[in-house]
């Protein structure tokens, strides 16, 4: 009997605490129908969202040389890419001999494991913080190079991304 009554007071106490600081939060927006304020879920810095390709601003081209290392190491084989000769290299602007021509990731298949980022030798791929990309279309999350670069560029801007090989060693 006693424990049941104790339990009643525990829930009561919890509600008192809950009124002060509830543990849940409103998602994806606070306010009501009239005043809507976007409130996306905060993520940790290391959060692994969908993979994206980075953009070398100094040169004005993607980092990716389409070397296929990530593609071979992806456990779900969800990526594919083709390469071409780098026109900028011919002009002498870039040191990359080859550059990515097309790149496709099927994000529906990607398991967000981060292996691709780990194995890329050219700092070309990052796990962005993007994780809300549902579409109503089957295979709607098959993204190609422009989308990936855009995602990556957004991520670079948001997090002041430094290429891993250039990070302080």
């Amino acid at each position, binding site marked *: *009997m006693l424990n*049941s009554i104790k*339990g*009643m007071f*525990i*829930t*009561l106490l*919890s*509600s008192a*605490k*809950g*009124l002060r*600081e*509830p*543990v*849940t*939060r*409103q998602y994806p927006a606070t306010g*009501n*129908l009239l005043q809507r304020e976007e409130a996306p879920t905060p993520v940790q810095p290391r959060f692994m969202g969908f993979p994206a390709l980075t953009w070398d601003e100094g040169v004005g081209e993607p980092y990716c040389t389409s070397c296929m290392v990530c593609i071979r190491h992806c456990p779900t084989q969800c990526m594919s890419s083709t390469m071409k000769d780098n026109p900028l290299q011919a002009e002498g602007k870039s040191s990359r001999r080859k550059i990515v021509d097309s790149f496709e990731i099927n994000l529906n298949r990607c398991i967000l494991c981060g292996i691709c980022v780990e194995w890329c030798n050219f700092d070309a791929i990052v796990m962005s913080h993007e994780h809300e990309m549902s579409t109503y279309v089957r295979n709607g999350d098959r993204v190609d190079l422009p989308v990936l670069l855009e995602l990556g560029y957004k991520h670079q801007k948001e997090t002041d991304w430094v290429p891993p090989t250039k990070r302080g060693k």
Partner: protein
Amino acid sequence: MLISWADLGWILLSLFIMFNALSVVVLSLTWLERKALGRLQRRLGPTRSGPMGLLQPVADGIKLIIKEDIIPSSSEKAIFWGAPLIVMLSAFMIWVTIPGAQDAVIKNLDLGLFYIIAFSVIGILGLVLAGWGSANKYGTLGGLRAAAQLVSYEIPIIMVAVSVAMLAQSLDMREIVAQQSSYPFVLVQPLGLVVFFIAGLAEVGRTPFDIYFAESEIVGGPFVEYSGAHWSLFFLAEYINTFAIAALTVLLFFGGWQFPGVELAGYLAVIWFLFKVYLVILVIVWIRGTFPRLRIDQLMAFAWKVAVPLSFLTVVMTAIYQFYGWPAWSLTLMSLAGLVWVGYAIYRRMAGPASRVAQTKKRIQARQEELMAARRNRAERTRRG
């Protein structure tokens, strides 16, 4: 012609008003329950539709009504269709004679209490039919559970109601409330209140007695095949019944709309009455937020071994008190003695498991302490040596 056209029109109008008022009450109850439960669990509860999520029930209602109403092909169509109506009917009909204040009642009956109890039993039939008609084994199990549970808890409710009627010397709800102008009956019959409240919880299937639709076991019991508007009828009836039990608790034991010392009139009385009822509802939600669910055999054992004998005891005690004309506090004492006995009975029932459990806990704790001591010793030795 038994009644005139004017009377008929008047009755229809008041029934219409009652229907709408009860619907609004149900909306408020669903909101209250979700919000209160959320707060008990440190959640926010509904927030998005309207200020503080107040429009959430409306949104739910719209969604339920436009949802597809699926009828399983193997079900008994007529029964499947009729069952929600029966449940609904009994839920609504009892409100004809439950007064919200002296004059806020559709038709006050001299045998009001009798009528309420008689009509509330019909709902069981609907649940059993729903379970059987949906041709689903969970439904059948749920329907049978509902029959067993509701029929057995009907008895304590009736007996306690009888004892209250004996105290008030009337079955008329208004009269019962009027009799409590000096003191509410909870003061003389606390045992009655406890038995009535527990049996009432079981009667409307609230936690810890939500056995006949136990989501985690039989997945909604009789309602498992229902969807859309039909399901919402059950939903409506369930909340109206909850509200009715809370209202009856207030009417029978907490003096209805009587404010101690002051004669309330008109709207004030209704508001005061509603305030009390919502407090009782909050307690029901609070209980839901705290307790697990009983098992059906434990529930039945509790009904027949504890609740039924106790309810008879309340009748006997009230009879003795009335017959010998003892002072009111004597009944209070008797009643409290009964309450202590309940506590003791539950304690006895749980004594075996509880001691076993305590033993386990003690053993584990002892070993933990041993380990801690050993660790402390080792730390001491390394510091010294």
